[in-house]
């Protein structure tokens, strides 16, 4: 599988996760008093890294480790 195609799919998923404003543009549930609008987007950063690691770790290219 092509690294860039998998990455493009991941990018599309990320666009959807943040574009769903009605899903997370809410006050409650809160975490430590922080409204969902803020914590959802912050936690999504962790999700972003995990999703971006999928193409990086699973789709190897033969020249990756060449220096």
């Amino acid at each position, binding site marked *: 599988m092509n690294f860039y195609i998998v990455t493009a799919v991941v990018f599309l998923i990320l666009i959807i996760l943040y574009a769903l404003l009605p899903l997370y543009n809410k006050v409650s549930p809160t975490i430590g*008093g922080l*409204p969902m609008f803020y914590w959802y987007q912050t936690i999504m950063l962790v999700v972003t890294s995990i999703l971006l690691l999928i193409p990086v770790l699973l789709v190897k*290219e033969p020249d990756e480790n060449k220096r």
Partner: protein
Amino acid sequence: MSSIAQGIHIDITTVIVFIVVFIVFAFLGFYGSRWRRGDLSKLSEWALAGRKLGWFLNWFLMGADLFTAYTFIAVPSLLLASGPVGFFAVPYVAWGFAVELLIAPRLWTVARNRGYVTAADFVKDRFNSRLLPIAIALTGTVAELPYIALQIIGMEAVLIPIFLALGVSAIKTATDLALLVSFIILAAFVFTSGLRGATLTGVFKDLLIWITVLVVIIYVPLAVGGFGVALHNAQTLSTAVDSAINHVSKPILYAHAPTVEAFASAYLSLALGSALALFLYPHAVNGYLSPESKRAVKLSAALLPIYGIGLALIALFAILIYSVPNAVNLVVATKNGALTVPSLIGYTLPSWFVGLAYVGIFIGGLVPAAIMAIGVANLLTRNVIKEFWKDMPEHTEATLAKWISTAFKFVALAFVFIVPATYAIQLQLLGGILIAQTLPPVFLGLYTDKLEPRSLFVGWLAGIGSGVYLTLLANHFGPLKTSAYLTPIGPLYIAVIALSINLVISLVGTGIAYALGWRPAGKIKAEEITMLK
């Protein structure tokens, strides 16, 4: 003690910590030239640290680009003044690194295969064009100016409370003098150590910033109450903030964003436009061309959103500040939203820690300014001056770049005077509008050579023209306060509008050229972009 900064935890200890840490920083900057020694009279050694950075160091270097005055000063300032729209920086970061992963490994590979140092180098061969790389180099140069200016506003934002608390009467003179001295030190070590010095100091500054962020985000909620208290206080206290900064006497709603389409279009287009623009900046290109292997490029990009958590937490300081009414009062009294983070830190943490945090923020403006100036110097030397001075010797190229980077830092100082400090983020957004117009030849160019160079040039021209014009129009030809333009589908970040115009012209022009018999004449083979020789 000045009455404005009454009770802020700044004393002689703060100043001593600030100065001592700054001396350590300067030492590291100069030491950079000895670190992993290379021949610094070569441009790739000076500007790309010899392309020897592993993924972890590169992660720090790219993170240093992220943890700048944009993050500590501009974003919290916008969130304080305008509410939830300021949080667009979070999806911007998330999307930005996905964009990096799509383009950086390709540009890195072709740059290594063919010895490129800038994106314009690549465009020149890809489209066999002389005009396009010059256009790209000049855009990169101009777009970095407001971004560097933003760093200077960030540095001022920690100097102002210090001088206020120490009762210095001539604040403006004292601030200017402190900035000038810092810039001279910075210019000297950038000249001697190039990107190596910036990387070493970048690691140092990021450690300071991470410590500060974590201490504040844990300590403040425990000591004075968390976000619940802050949001409750904001209902009454935010009216004073609104009237001091926006001249509107209404409370600012922070708890959630307005549920209207106008918010969504502005929010998402700001995030998308910024994400597309980020990795076109010359300093960012330098950053992702410097790793030792393609694997390092990819790993670093995938892990950078973790760095973005720091950005999100710092942005939230703009809400947390309401749990400390004295800190809010300082922002109101100075009518300066840029003081949000320095004020919250100054009123909550012990004076020695304030010194540590402030010097972190101060260096946090200084290091990115250096990285940006290196990026610009690279571009101007290789892609503009060298175009007209073909047989420039390699050591002259490096020397010229060093002098340009020095001069450029001082030119950027001038930019600070045209934007209200609270809206410092508009400087970065203006840079984004300009640099986004180089997307078609650079990013699309990494995937196809079937774009006609003259169409790309006309598209670029139309993108820059419409971007600048709409920015002037949206601000009523006055001071820069907004980067969004009201369209029939709602307000949109002007970078996105101008880029759309640019893309349409580039594609339609290419279609017409094809019909008239034009065929791609690039010098780069597809496998040179995908596979390291």
